[in-house]
Structure formats: C-alpha cells, structure tokens
C-alpha cells in the first residue's frame, strides 16, 4: 500500500461556544489526494470541524495545520463551500465569479468561464443567482470554490436540497477533482451518494471523532452505519 502524505492535521482541537463545546479534543491527520467524508448526527460538530479546517472558526484550544501552515496562511490552497451559497443573489453567476476572482488576484474572464463550464453551467447565463434553482446555485457555489484552483476543498452539505440526478452529477464532478489530485472533505447526511467514491468515512459524535473507516475496508459493504 502506497503511503500518502498528510495534508491536513488537527491536534487536540477544542471549540467552545459559550459553555457548549462543539468540538472536544479532536485529533486527526488526513492524507492528501483523498476524498474524506465527515458524517454524524445533527449537532455532532461536523460543520464546526469543517469551518475550523477552513480557518473560519478559531479553535478555543489546539491547532489546525493545512499543508504545514495555519489555514489563514494556506488560504490560496483552500476552497470552501458552505450550506448557503456564498454568492450575491442580485448578480449573475459570471459577475459573482469575476468579483471573487479579483480577491485572488485573478483578472480576466477566462478562468471564471472555465470554472462555470467545469460544473456544467453556461457562463452566458445572465439571470441573477437569486433566480437559479437550488441545484444550479449549488453548482455555481462549487464553481466559486474551485475558481482559484485550490488543492484542498472543504464542502459543507453540497447535496442538500438538490435532486438525486443533480447530486449524482455533482458527485461525478467531485470524483473527477479527486482523481486530478485534489483533497476533498465533504460534510453530508447523504453518505450513500458517496459510496464507491469516497476514500474515507469519518464519524463524529458529540464533538469527537468516534470512528474512521477506509472505503477499501468497507468495499462492497456500503456506507458504514453508526
């Protein structure tokens, strides 16, 4: 078996909101170029863990390392997609992407058009994002996350409120990105969609990682149930 290098690591991360601890001493290392799926019940700490990895939630204690740096320092290599779209409803897809491209020092339309095409949408679509269907909005949100060609993608509930067909298409896109060498983290409740695609399932309960299952172990057994 070929050892893959660690790209993201968390060391004894505790995240408290007032007296509530969303993460309780999470420690883990995640290999590069793999598809990691984070599972757990509501309130298990999945989104908080993902936000901590992306640098949006600062751990109360412990540390997060992305490519040996803090998430903030590694931000050019991070693509983040949240449950909300992170897009301006009043602007079209290409207008949104052109703005976000500028934040990464990318000028010109070509990269934006390429990102939109890569998620199966038409860059010429002039409608404002607010008038998109949920599936289109999720795809455009993914286009925004991959616009600057990051090495790591953190995706929070990318398939929620998306019909099965669109969700399967998105899974196909993500599989292609993983095969191209990107490291992907997905928080989802729809783990069955990722059967045969994900490399690892990580189970969270009450702010702690309770299990990690490699898909090769589970091959043919479906998504592990907890």
């Amino acid at each position, binding site marked *: 078996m070929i050892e893959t290098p660690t790209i993201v690591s968390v060391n004894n991360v505790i995240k408290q909101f007032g007296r509530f601890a969303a993460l309780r001493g999470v420690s883990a290392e995640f290999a590069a170029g793999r598809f990691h799926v984070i599972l757990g019940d509501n309130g298990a700490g999945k989104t908080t863990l993902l936000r901590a990895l992306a640098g949006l939630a*600062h751990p109360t204690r412990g540390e997060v390392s992305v490519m040996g740096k803090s998430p903030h320092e590694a931000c050019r290599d991070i693509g983040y997609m949240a449950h*909300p779209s*992170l897009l*301006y*409803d009043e602007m079209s897809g290409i207008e949104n992407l052109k703005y976000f491209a*500028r*934040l990464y020092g990318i000028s010109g339309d070509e990269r934006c058009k390429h990102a939109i095409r890569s998620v199966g949408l038409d860059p010429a679509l002039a409608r404002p994002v607010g008038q998109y269907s949920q599936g289109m909005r999720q795809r455009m949100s993914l286009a925004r996350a991959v616009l600057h060609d990051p090495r790591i993608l953190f995706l929070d509930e990318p398939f929620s409120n998306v019909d099965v067909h669109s969700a399967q298409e998105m899974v196909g896109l993500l599989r292609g990105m993983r095969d191209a060498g990107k490291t992907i983290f997905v928080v989802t409740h729809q783990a069955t969609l990722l059967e045969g695609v994900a490399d690892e399932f990580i189970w969270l309960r009450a702010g702690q990682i309770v299990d990690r299952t490699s898909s090769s172990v589970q091959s043919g057994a479906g998504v592990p149930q907890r």
Partner: protein
Amino acid sequence: MNSLWPITLASLAKDIRLEWRSKDALNSMLFFSLLVVVIFSFSFDPTAEESREIAGGLVWVAFLFSAIVALNQTWARELRNQVLDAYRVSPAPANALFLSKALGNFILVTLLEAVMAPLFMVFYNLRVVGAAWELIPVCVLGTWALVASGTFFAAMSIRTRMREVMLPLILFPLSIPAIQSMVEATRIILSGDGNPRFWIVLLLTYDVVFTTACLALFETVLQAE
C-alpha cells in the same frame, strides 16, 4: 499591500452595482430624510430666525439618521447567503473591504446630501451669510467622519442579535465630537457669525484618528466569530 486598491475598487464597484439594482439603501435614506424635513417643518415655524439658528443641527441630524440606514444595509448584504465567509477565506486584505464599504457609504451619503441640501435651503428659507465654499470641507470631512466610524461599528454589530439598535447606541456617543464640529461649523457658516476653522480642524483630527484606528483594528473585527 499591492492588492489593496484593486480589491478595494472591485468591492466598491460590486457594492455600487448591487445598490443600483436593489436601491434598498438609497430609497430608505431619501424617504427618511424627507420625513425629517417635513416633520420638523410641522413642529415649528421654519422661517423664524431661531429656526435658522438651529438649521445646521437639523441638517446633520437628518443626515446622521439616514446614514444609519445605509450603514446597516452595507453589512446586511454581506450576511445574506453568508457571503462574508467567502471574503474571509480569501487572501484579500481586510482593509480593502473596510475601505470599499466606507467609500460606498460616503458616495451614498454625499448623494443624499446633494439632493437634500437644496430642499433644506428652501424649506427653512436659509441663505449663507458666511463663506459658502467652507461648507465643502465641512460636508466632506463630516460625511467621512460619519461613514468611517459608522462602517466600522456596523461591522462590529453585525453578529449581535439587535444590530439595527446596537449601531446607533455605539456610534452616536463616540461621534459626539464630530457631530458637534459639523453642527457648529455649519451654523457659523450659515450665520456668518465667527470663524469655523477650529471646528474644521477638529473634524479633520477626528477623521484622521478614527480612520487610522479603524484600519488598524478591522482585521480583528472581520475575523471575529
């Protein structure tokens, strides 16, 4: 630092485009200012000499309250769909966002002043006895004083539950030196009674101090949870 101004201008252009399409802030500000003019004109005889004495205060009260509408709207837009998180995960400098928001609010409030000032002059039968050109630095420095500190405190209050109430509660007490300078300078210029230079210098000092402090602290505010 090289990316500060290109990103500031890109964010400013985006905000102007969004405001042009929605006109959320502009319509509310205009309506609010008009309401103030009309209500005050009902409250007392606007042509009386005493009314003209307090016209400087009335003008700035109207602009101050109207600016609050724009300031709240500025950040509300970034909270919808959590768009602010997309900025926070990017390498763009925090100060570019602050400057673009402050400049956007400056343009909006200046537009409002340009529309409302002639109405005030007509409603309150005002005429400038002092040097009229001195109103320009008072307006520019006064508007920047309102929007720079207002944009900063609006950003601070966006994560609070009652942000619309919190902003004036934080902003108004801290703006007292600036408000007093604007009102006094305007009154002196309108009445021609004295020299407004002291108040203009005070306003300039307030602008320099607050703008520097806001720029130094904005990254902390942006990255706060």
